[in-house]
C-alpha cells in the first residue's frame, strides 16, 4: 500500500527514492512520473514565494532567490491552503542563510513584502476625516486613543529598508545607510510603504499600543513633525475611530 505519508516523503526531498507501488501503464516503476509531482510541488511553492517577495527577488536575483526558496520550502512548507499567507516566516529564515550574511538588511526588507501582502488582503475600513479631530478640545484630544485601519502596518528597522525597497522595485536615488521606520498604508486597495520622519515611528507605535494621544506625542521627540504624520494618516483613511 502506498500511503500518503510515503508519497509525501519524497515530494520535498529529491534524494528520497520513488515510493513503491507507483507504476506506469505497463506496471514498470513510475520513476520520472513521480518526478512530475515533485516538480509541481517545488515549482508552485517557489513561484508563490517569488511572487510574494518582489523586493527580495529584486535584491538577490533569480538564481539566489531560487536557492533560498528551495531551502525554505523544504524546511517550511505551507501550513494552510491560503497561499496568500505563505512565506510569513521567510524573513527570519534569511538570517540563517550563511551565504546572505553580508546583506544583514534582507530580512527587514522582506518584512515589507510580507506586510504589503497582509495589507492588501486586510479587512476594509473607513477613515475619519480631519473635522473629527478638530472638533475635540485640547484636553480631550490629548486623552484620546486612536483606532487604526487593519491594513496599516508599521515596520521599524535599523536599516534604510523603505529606501532599499523603493530603489529595488522603482529605481531612484541609491539608499543611504540610516535607520528607517516604514508605515504601510492602504487608502483604497493598493498598499504603499511610506518612510516616516523623525520620531513618527515612536508615536505610531505608542498609539497602536493604545497610548492616549498626549502620551504618544511625548514619545516623538524634538524633531517630530505632527502635522506631517496626521496628514499622512488622514489622507490614507488610516485612523478609523477615536476613543475619547
Amino acid at each position, binding site marked *: 500500500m502506498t500511503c500518503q505519508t510515503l508519497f509525501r516523503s519524497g515530494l520535498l526531498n529529491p534524494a528520497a527514492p520513488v515510493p513503491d507501488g507507483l507504476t506506469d*501503464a505497463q506496471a514498470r516503476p513510475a*520513476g*520520472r512520473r513521480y518526478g512530475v509531482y515533485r516538480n509541481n510541488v517545488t515549482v508552485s511553492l517557489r513561484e508563490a514565494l517569488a511572487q510574494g517577495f518582489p523586493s527580495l527577488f529584486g535584491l538577490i536575483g533569480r538564481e539566489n532567490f531560487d536557492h533560498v526558496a528551495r531551502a525554505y520550502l523544504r524546511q517550511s512548507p505551507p*501550513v494552510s491552503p491560503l497561499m*496568500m499567507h505563505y512565506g510569513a516566516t521567510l524573513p527570519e529564515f534569511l538570517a540563517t542563510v550563511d551565504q546572505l550574511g553580508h546583506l544583514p538588511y534582507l530580512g527587514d526588507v522582506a518584512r515589507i513584502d510580507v506586510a504589503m501582502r497582509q495589507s492588501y488582503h*486586510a479587512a476594509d475600513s473607513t477613515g475619519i476625516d480631519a473635522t473629527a479631530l478638530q472638533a475635540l478640545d485640547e484636553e480631550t484630544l490629548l486623552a484620546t486613543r486612536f483606532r487604526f485601519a487593519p491594513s496599516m502596518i508599521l515596520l521599524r528597522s535599523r536599516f534604510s529598508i523603505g529606501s532599499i525597497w523603493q530603489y529595488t522595485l522603482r529605481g531612484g536615488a541609491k539608499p543611504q545607510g540610516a535607520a528607517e521606520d516604514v508605515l504601510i498604508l492602504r487608502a483604497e486597495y493598493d498598499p504603499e510603504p511610506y518612510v516616516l520622519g523623525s520620531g513618527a515611528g515612536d508615536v505610531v507605535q505608542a498609539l497602536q499600543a493604545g497610548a492616549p494621544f498626549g502620551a504618544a506625542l511625548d514619545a516623538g521627540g524634538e524633531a517630530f513633525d505632527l502635522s506631517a504624520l496626521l496628514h499622512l494618516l488622514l489622507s490614507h483613511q488610516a485612523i478609523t475611530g477615536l476613543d475619547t
Partner: protein
Amino acid sequence: MPDATHAFPHLPTLPGVGYKPQHFADIMADPSPVGWLEIHAENYMGDGGRPLAQLRVLSERFPISVHGVGLSIGGEGRLDPDHLARLKHLCDWLNPASFSEHLAWSTHDSHFLNDLLPLPYTNDTLTRVADHIDEVQSVLGRKMLLENPSSYLAFAESTWSETDFLAEIVRRTGCGLLLDVNNVFVSATNLDYSPQGYIDAYPLEAVGEIHLGGHDEDEDDFGAPLLIDSHGREVVDPVWALLDHTLGRSGPKPLLVEWDTDVPEWPVLADEARRAARALTRVLA
C-alpha cells in the same frame, strides 16, 4: 460585507473562463462570449481588499462557480474544519451557481503541498472520499461537483477504474461531477488508454460542468509521452475533438476554459471561449 444581492441558481450552458484579476476591466467592458466565471476559492479568503471588492461586482453580473483547490478531499486525515468553515463563509456570502473540488489530496500532517496529488482507487479510498464529500455537502448545505484528476502514474493497489470509482461516489453521495476533458486526455495518454473509451464509460448524466485547458508535453523514462496539465497555453485540437465526442453524448453543458500560468491578454482567452461557444452551437444543431 453584506451578502451578494444577485443570485444565479445555475451555471448557464455557455462558455465561461477562469477569472484572472488582470482581465477585470476587459470583462466589465465586453465579456462576450463569456457568460459566467470561475474563481479559485482560496484566492478569496482574505479579510477584504480588492479581491473581494472585484468579486462582489462580478457576482452581481455573472453566475460564479467557486472552485476549491485546497480542501484535500482525497486526504487520509480528516477535512480541515477551519478550511471548510472558510468555504462555507465564502459560499454563504456569494451564493455561487456552483461549487466544485478535486478528486485529489494536497494536505498531509498539516502541511499544504499546493498540488493536486493522486490517490489509489480502492474500497478504502472510495469510502473515505465519499465520507468527505458527505461532510462538505452537509456543511455547505449544497451539492458539490467532483473533478477527475490529471494522472501521471498508476497505483499498483488500485482495484477500481476511475470512471467506476466516480460513478460509485456519485451513487453514494449524490454529488455531481466536473468533467475535465483535458485531464481525461492527459491521463489517457499517460496511462495508455482510450480517452473516448473513458468518456463512454463515464457517468455523463452527473456532469454539471466541463473544463478545458492546455497541457505541456514531456517524456517518461522509457521515452513514452508524458503530458503535464499546465493550464499555460491553448487547448489542443485532440482535446477539442474529445469535447465534441463528449457533448455529442452528454448534450450541452457549461464549458470552462482554464488558463492559470502565463495568462494571456483577454482577447486570446476570449478566442478560446469563442471556440467553446462553437462547440456548443454544433451540438445544439
